[in-house]
């Protein structure tokens, strides 16, 4: 892997955002809308429910902030590829001296930057609007963010692989894939709220342990270390499998000429 190559690919992405600031709407506007909706729902519930859980319910705001980290990391990877499809630049990139590792690393970097921008912005807004301080999670924020980033990258690679394999018609998967897992990811409700069969699905998703941990952390200040370790282990499995899938799909794309089809459509 070459840092110069990764830097050049990331630079291209930064140029894209500085050239067209309207793209920031996607990074700032929609997440902020989400925060306002869930934030005011939280305020409403706090005012109209029993005093026994006036504070715990703020986990809905924490869920919005942490979900955006996963979602934006996934988007960073998937949209990075689509930007080249949309601009008919794909052949220029893949005919340049760029390895799979260079390409993936640059998508991870972009995913990290996107997640960083959105989550910092949401954290800043959540404080004055709802008196919600994500940093009250203290040190546990570090493994939470790390695990959500890694799972987002893995989902991004899976999305990109599916798009490469099935062509531009599968573009919507770039947005759909995270929401396919969201109902089972225990983002806004605990795993125990799911039917027993679906709880097994939730337990196979690393992010479910993070959202459970976030709720525990906000409620009683304690995080289930065992859950964090399981999430980290699962993440490495998902990342490795997604990497293998990506490489295999790229090889198939070269055999079937799929990359050239993107340029002619």
């Amino acid at each position: 892997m070459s840092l110069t190559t990764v830097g050049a690919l990331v630079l291209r992405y930064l140029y894209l955002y500085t050239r067209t600031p309207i793209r920031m709407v996607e990074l700032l506007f929609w997440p902020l809308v989400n925060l306002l909706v869930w934030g005011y729902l939280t305020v409403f519930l706090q005012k109209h429910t029993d005093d026994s859980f006036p504070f715990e319910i703020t986990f809905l705001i924490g869920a919005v902030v942490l979900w955006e980290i996963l979602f934006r990391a996934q988007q960073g990877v998937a949209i990075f590829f689509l930007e080249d499809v949309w601009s008919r630049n794909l052949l220029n990139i893949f005919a340049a001296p760029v390895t799979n590792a260079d390409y993936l690393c640059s998508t991870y970097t972009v995913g990290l930057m996107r997640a960083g921008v959105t989550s910092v912005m949401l954290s800043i807004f959540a404080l004055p609007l709802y008196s919600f301080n994500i940093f009250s999670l203290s040190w546990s924020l570090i493994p939470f963010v790390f695990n959500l980033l890694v799972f987002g990258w893995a989902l991004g690679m899976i999305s990109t692989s599916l798009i490469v394999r099935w062509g531009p018609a599968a573009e919507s998967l770039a947005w759909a894939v995270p929401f396919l897992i969201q109902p089972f990811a225990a983002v806004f409700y605990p795993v125990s709220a799911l039917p027993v069969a679906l709880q097994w699905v939730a337990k196979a998703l690393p992010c479910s342990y993070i959202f459970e941990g976030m709720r525990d952390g906000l409620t009683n200040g304690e995080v289930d270390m065992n859950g964090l370790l399981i999430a980290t282990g699962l993440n490495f499995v998902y990342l490795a499998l997604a990497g293998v899938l990506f490489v295999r799909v790229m090889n198939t794309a070269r055999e079937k000429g799929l990359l050239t089809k993107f340029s002619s459509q």
Partner: protein
Amino acid sequence: MENPVLQVSGLTKSFGDVVSVNNVSFEIRRGEILGLLGANGAGKTTAINMLLGIVSPNSGTIKVFGKDLAESRIEILRRMNFCSTYTQLPGNLRVRQNLYVFGKLYRVPDLKNRIDEVLEMLEISHLRERVSGHLSAGESTRLNLCKSLLNHPELLLLDEPTASLDPDIADKVRKVVKKIRDEEGATILYTSHNMRDVEEVCDRVVFMHKGEVLFAGTSDEVLEHFKQDTLEDVFIQVARSGEIETQKGEVES
């Protein structure tokens, strides 16, 4: 005798039941401009995509600079480049930004000066700060050419580089192509449907038809072989004939 810069041997590629390139062999020596000709669907672009490593062949070998493309792809790609009428550089970036990014990808030293040089060479220096998506088709093609020249490529693949250019600009592009061959010793594979391009620029041509090499030689040899007066007449004869006897196998340089 010096090894050829590009050596293609028994190259075959099929997509399902369709054989796009069938047992194609040719080679290009250093400083040579080879025209790869044929009607639409002849297999030229598939062949070029295999030379770039974007499409993998079913069989056959591609050696560039004496090295196997399948084994040394990245090392080889650093020393070559390509320009295709079917690709574009990102339309949201400025001309300078696009060239800077690709210059970094190809690890071009003294990049800022090199960007100025290629823009000057293709006479689009005045477009340096223009947004690429706002360029005309001809300007966009010249920007693509600029990108392909950034790294002083030893092997340059040009896929219909004059397709969207007016006669004046096309003439200038042909002169640039000859200039980089003459002054930098670049080896060039050139595809075009414009036979004037080919007659003016190419030292030798390879005619492809339905995925196979039909004939290879100098323009004069091609004319003599097909008993025609111009390459355009040969092109039309080849494109319209389903009965042409193909000369398969190794093509002499």
